[in-house]
C-alpha cells in the first residue's frame, strides 16, 4: 500500500498546470481530490512519475447560474455541489447525485472535473452529466474547447482529453426536468453496481457501470420518444450492452438490474 516514488509539482494556474503537463508528457498526472488516483497509486496500478497538483486552483471552484445554464468550475468539490443552494435550485439532480458519491471524506476532497477526467464507468457524476446533456470545457496549450459529454468518454478510464489538456469547467442546462437517480450498491460508500440517471422527463437516460464508459441509454430514450411506456422502455435498457462481470454482479444480473432500475427511475421521474 505504498506508492512508487514520484515527483510533485504545485500548479499556480491552469496555464501553469498545462505547461507542466507539456513538459512531463504522459508520465504526468493531474492531482485534484486524489480519491481515485491515490488509491490506484497505493496499489501500484498507477505509477505516474510526476503529479501536478491542481487542488489549489481556487479560481476553478465556483457554481454560476444564469442564461439557462449552470457552469461549474472543475475544482468544485462534490460536497460543494451537494450543499449549494444555487445548484439545488438550478440543477437539483446534480446536487442530489453528488450527495451519493462515496462517503463524506471522498465528497470533501473529490472534484467534479476530477471524476469526469478519471472517466470511471462506475462513477455517479459522469453519468449524471451525460443524462443532463452537459458540456465539458477543456483547456490545452492552444486554448479552450467545448466537448459534448456524449462525445467525451471513449473507454475504461479513457476520454478524448489529450495528455496536455485539463478540464476547467462543466456546464449543464438549468432545470433537470423530471429526474431521478437510482444507485444500487451494497455498502453506502461504494461505487454503483448499476446506476441509472434520468433527466428531462426521460429525454436523457444514462447507465452507470454497464460497460466501458458511462452509457447514454439511447434505446430507452428512443422508445420513450416513440411513445412507449416506462416499463416497455426499461425492458430494452440493457440491449446491445456488454456489462462487466465482477464479484458483485455478473453480466446477466447486471442487465436485469439495469432494466429494474431504469423502470424505477423513470417512474420516479414522472414517466408512466
Amino acid at each position, binding site marked *: *500500500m*505504498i506508492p*512508487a*516514488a514520484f515527483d510533485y509539482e504545485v500548479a499556480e494556474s491552469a496555464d501553469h498546470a498545462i505547461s507542466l503537463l507539456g513538459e512531463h508528457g504522459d508520465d504526468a498526472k493531474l492531482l485534484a481530490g486524489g480519491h481515485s488516483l491515490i*488509491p490506484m497509486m497505493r*496499489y*501500484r496500478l498507477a505509477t505516474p512519475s510526476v503529479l501536478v497538483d491542481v487542488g489549489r486552483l481556487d479560481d476553478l471552484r465556483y457554481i454560476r447560474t444564469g442564461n439557462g445554464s449552470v457552469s461549474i468550475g472543475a475544482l468544485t468539490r462534490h460536497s460543494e455541489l451537494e450543499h449549494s443552494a444555487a445548484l439545488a435550485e438550478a440543477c437539483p439532480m446534480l446536487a442530489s447525485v453528488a450527495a451519493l458519491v462515496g*462517503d463524506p471524506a471522498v465528497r470533501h476532497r473529490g472534484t467534479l472535473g476530477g471524476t469526469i477526467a478519471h472517466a470511471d464507468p462506475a462513477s455517479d457524476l459522469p453519468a449524471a452529466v451525460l443524462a443532463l446533456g452537459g458540456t465539458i470545457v477543456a483547456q490545452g496549450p492552444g486554448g479552450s474547447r467545448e466537448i459534448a459529454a456524449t462525445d467525451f468518454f471513449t473507454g475504461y478510464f479513457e476520454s478524448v482529453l489529450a495528455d496536455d489538456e485539463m478540464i476547467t469547467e462543466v456546464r449543464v442546462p438549468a432545470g433537470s426536468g423530471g429526474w431521478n437517480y437510482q444507485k*444500487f450498491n*451494497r*455498502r*453506502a*460508500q*461504494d461505487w454503483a*453496481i448499476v446506476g441509472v440517471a434520468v433527466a428531462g422527463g426521460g429525454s436523457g437516460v444514462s447507465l452507470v457501470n454497464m460497460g466501458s464508459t458511462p452509457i447514454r441509454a439511447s434505446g430507452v430514450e428512443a422508445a420513450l420518444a416513440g411513445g412507449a411506456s416506462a416499463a416497455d422502455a426499461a425492458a430494452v435498457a440493457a440491449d446491445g450492452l456488454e456489462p462487466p462481470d*465482477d*464479484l*458483485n*454482479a*455478473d453480466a446477466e*444480473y447486471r442487465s*436485469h*438490474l439495469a432494466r*429494474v*432500475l431504469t423502470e424505477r427511475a423513470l417512474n420516479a421521474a414522472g414517466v408512466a
Partner: protein
Amino acid sequence: MTITEDAPAGHVGSRRLRKEDPALLTGEAKFIDDLALPGAIWVGVVRSTEAHANIVGIDGSAALEIDGVNEVLSGEDLAPLWGEGALPCAWPVTPDMKNPAHLPVARGTAKYVGDAVAVVLADSRYAAADGAAAVVVDYEPLPAVVEIEDAVADGAPLVHADLDSNECYTWGLWGDNAPAIDAAFAEAAHVVSERYLQQRLIPAPMEPRGCAAVPSPAGGELTLYSATQIPHILKVMTAVVLGIPENKLRVVAPSVGGGFGCKLNVYAEEILCSALAMQRGAPVRWTEGRAEAAVSTIQGRGQVQHIELAADADGKVTAVRVKLLADMGAYLQLVTPGVPLLGGFLYHGCYDIPNYMFECTSVFTNRTPTDAYRGAGRPEATYAVERAMDSLAVSVGVSPEEIRARNFIGADAFPYESAAGLVFDSGDYQTVLDKAVALADVDGRRAEAAQRRASGSSKRIGVGFSSYVEMCGLAPSRVLASLDYGAGGWEAATVRISPTCKVQVVTGSTPHGQGHETCWSMIVADQLGVDPDDVEVLHSDTAVSPTGLDTYGSRSLAVGGTAVYMATEKVIDKARAIAAHQLEASEDDLEFSGGVFRVRGTPEAEVPLAGIAFAAFTAHDLPDGMEPNLEAHVTYDPPNFTFPNGTHIAVVEVDTDTGDVDLIDYVAVDDCGVQINPLVVEGQVHGGILQGAAQALYEDAVYNSDGQLVSANLGDYLVPSAAEAPRFRLDSHATPSPTNPMGVKGVGEAGTIAAAPAVINAVVDALRDLGVTDVDMPASPQTVWRAIADAQGGAS
C-alpha cells in the same frame, strides 16, 4: 454472591466511560508503527504470486539498484537463522495429525498466494516496499488445491508432496454412542439433513499487524514489540523457536488496534525480525500493508458442514450428527487445527439432545492458513444447528420459537451435563427467548409480512431467530490437556496498594480494544472503596506483567477479571489483619466497606484503608512476622468454562426484484452473566452483531480456481460500515455463573456467534413461500436474486 449484591451503590453495573478512550481518540496512544527506532532496518516481504509453485530463481538485482535497499535474502539465505525451526502449532489435536514444517520464509516451494519467498532489507519503509516490488521471482507453477472438497477428491494434487494425502487429521466425538445415534435416526419421525458452507473471512482489524525487534547487543537481550493479542505466549514461542533464553527476551504489545483472533498467533515476521535483530545487532522492523494483510495474516472460518437432526413427531430432537470438512490452508498456525474443535462440543446448541456425534476432517489447501477468528468454531456450530432447527420447524409445522421451546435445556436443569460432555453452568433460555420475541414484536412483524405477501409487494419481510450458547472463559487447564492443547488456561493478576493508597493492578490479560483498564478499575474500586481513577492497570509488557496467558476466546473477564478480583480479596485480607492489630480487635469482628475497617458494634473504632496502606509501607507496627506492603498475586485456573447464551432476532426486508437484503431491525437478548459495565457490553454486542451480519451479507474471501484471492482489497472485500449497521435493540437476562465469584461469563464473541444464522434465517423466512429453502453466505443481492429465480424456475 455477586458484587452488585454486596455493593449496590458501587461502580460495577454502571455505564462508566472508558478511561482508555481519551488517549486513543486524541492520537496520544502509540501503535506499533508509531515507535521511533532510529537506525532500524526495515523489512519488505516478497510474497508468492502463485498458489503453488517451485521457486526456480530469485533475482534481486533490480531491487538492489534502488536507493536505500541494501539486501535481498531468499529462504535459503535465511535458513541458518532458524535451521529446522518452524513456526509453532500449539494444538496437535490427534497423535497422527500432519504438521508440515512451516518456515518463516519458504524454501523451494511456495504453497499459497502470500507465502513469503524472500525479504528485502532497507533503510526505510518506502525503500523496503519499492525493493520488494522490484524483486523478480521465477516460478514453476504446480497444480493447486483451492476448494475444500477438491482437497479430498480422488487424484487431488498434493499441497505437501511428502504427505500421501491432503488430510491433516480426523477428530471425532461420540464415544460408544454410535448404535444409539443410528437407532435415533431409524426411529425418527422427522429427519433434517443439511449442508452449509462457511466461507473464508478476512479478519481486517483496524490496525494491520506489525513488529519491531530491538536488541541490546552488550547484554544480549532482545525486546520484541508486536501488534499482538498474546505477548506472553509470543515470548515463550519466540524463545523456543529461536533458542533465545527466556530471561533475555521481553515482549511488548503497544496499543493494539483490534485483532478478532488474527493477532492470536506467532507469525513469520515476528520470528524473522527477532532473528535478524539478534544477528545484526540492530533494530529490525516490519509494518504490514492493508493489501498484504489480506493474504499474509490468517483468515477465518472455511468449512463445509453436514448436519443431521433426528426428531420425534412433536419435534423433540433425539440426535444430532455432524460431519465437517475444515480448511486449514497451506500450513498450521498457532491453533489452526483446534478451531473446529471449539465448536465441536456445541452442535446441539442450547437444546437438550441426548445423542451426539461430531466428526471433523481437516484438510490442507493452497491458501492462506486459517486460524481463530472471532468466535472460533462456535459461530460455525451455532450457524449449523440454528439453520437446521428452522428446517425442522418447517418439517414439524411449528414456528421457529416453538421448535426451540420444545427443545431448550430447562432452566431447572443446571448444572446440565451435555451429551458432548460439557457441564453448562447456568441459564434460562426460554425466558431469554420470550423477552426477545416481545421486544422484536414478532407477531406484528409477521402480520406485516403476511400483508406484503398478500398485496404482491416485491418487498418481503422476514423474521429470523438464533438461540445460541457458547463456551467461554477458556479454559480449565486439565480440560485443555484432554484436548491435547499445548498450554494451560489460567490467568494471573497482581494487586498492590501504594503508600498513598493508589492501586496498581497488573493483569496477564492483554487488551486490544476491549476496555480492560476501565473494567478492572471498576471491579477493584468497588472492592477497596476507592475511586476507579485511583486504580492503574498495567498490562501487555512481559517486563511489567511477567505472567499471563493473554486475550482470546472471551476469557478476559471470566478468567483474568476473576484473578484480579481474587488478588484484591487477598489484599483486603492482609489489610484486615493490620487493621485488627491497630484496633486491637479480632479480624472476625471487623467489617470492611467504603474503604474503612470498622469494629462491629463500636462505630468509633475504625481505620481507613489509606491508613492501613501507609502503615504497611512504613512497617513500623505490623503484626509479628508479617511482611511489609499490601500486595497479592493470584493465578486463577477456572474450574469450568462459562456458557453465555441468548436469543437474537433479525428482521429483514428483501427486495425480490433485485435480491437486495435490508436488515431493518435487530433484537438481541443476551445472558453474559453479571455485567461489569453495560456500556462496554453493548459495544461488544454491537460490534459482534455487525461482524456476524457481515458474514451473512457482505464478507467473502473469494479465490479463483488458480488460487488467487480475488477479493484482496477493501473495495472488493466488503467490511460493512456504520451506514450498513441495523438498529440494535438490546436487552439482557443475567443468570450469574456459579463458576466464579463475580458470576460473570464473557461477551466478546456473543454477537458474532449469534448473528449470522439469525440474518440468514430471516432471509429464508422472507422467501420461503417463493420456494427458497437456503441461501448461501454471503447473501449478496445477486445470490438472493438467483436463489429466488432458481426456486421459481423449479416451481413452474
